[in-house]
């Protein structure tokens, strides 16, 4: 595990609007192909979890609070940067 960040996707909240796909700076989000959530939408998926930086841009643009975002604590006991937003 070397990823700097981690997102947890609450799949059933997702309406597949795709706004997060456009803002993700590392382009690791896509809509599910041929798979639907309980409300019939194609939910967002993460393609490469190792590339996530934990920038939380997806969470900031998301109208449906789909994302919970974590960021790896900096080394040498320094605290992680404060939450964005």
């Amino acid at each position: 595990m070397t990823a700097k960040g981690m997102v947890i996707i609450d799949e059933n909240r997702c309406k597949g609007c795709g706004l997060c796909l456009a803002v993700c700076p590392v382009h690791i989000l896509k809509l599910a192909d041929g798979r639907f959530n309980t409300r019939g939408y194609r939910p967002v998926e993460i393609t490469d979890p190792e590339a996530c930086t934990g920038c939380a841009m997806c969470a900031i643009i998301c109208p449906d609070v789909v994302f919970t975002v974590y960021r790896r604590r900096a080394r040498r006991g320094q605290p992680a940067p404060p939450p964005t937003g």
Partner: protein
Amino acid sequence: MATGQDIPPDMEPVYQYPESLTSRFTHYCPGCTHGVIHRLIAEVIDELGIRERTVGVAPVGCAVLAYDYFNLDFCEAAHGRAPAMATGIKRVSPDTVVFTYQGDGDLAAIGTAEIIHAANRGELITTIFVNNAIYGMTGGQMAPTTLPGQVTTSSPGGRDVRMAGWPIKMAELIGVLPGAAYVTRQAVLDVPGIRRAKQAIRLAFRVQLAGLGFSMVEILSTCNTNWGLSPLEALEWAKAHMVPYYPLGDTKVADAVRALMEQA
């Protein structure tokens, strides 16, 4: 909300579900920025630690069910009358923090008198005004905020300003009233704009908490369904067409509010 996934011990949360939102799924269309604005308000209320004493007043329009989505005390006002209801709540219970959440049909059409007089009286309430240049809930008719030439179901040839008048600039209109302490226009069309909108909402609530007067944040929003665009195209359309007509920025910052801003 987190699922059963394991979180490594050196990972710290940077974004979590706000306590001031319920877990209900919203009825808003996919990509509708109402959801973003709800979230920003909830985050600000969480961060200010005022959830237990905040009362929201919901409008008529797409946000009519806002009381289902905020984990707060909430009232539903008659169409356009949210500022009047908020006035009553705030005057009877001065310790509460009262905000109205209104769309452009609610605030800028049927409720114009209420918002102007509430602002002019300097009521200690905060108004979040969502401007998406159309009537969303009723099927995309022309609103007072619809842009010149904009096609809607009731202006199929585009808004003709000779017949329907000009789009109304509420932030400028309210900004000139002496009772208004802080009035600003923001947009939730990209990540930096969403961050600025959140700062504005936070300041608006702080103005109320400090008892400085009426505060309003107008927020340019999208209605991709009734504009006939994809969610992403709608953000770009709003940037290209709405922002030039509705310039972003503060239209009123009272001296006392400026002092408050400097306190960070």
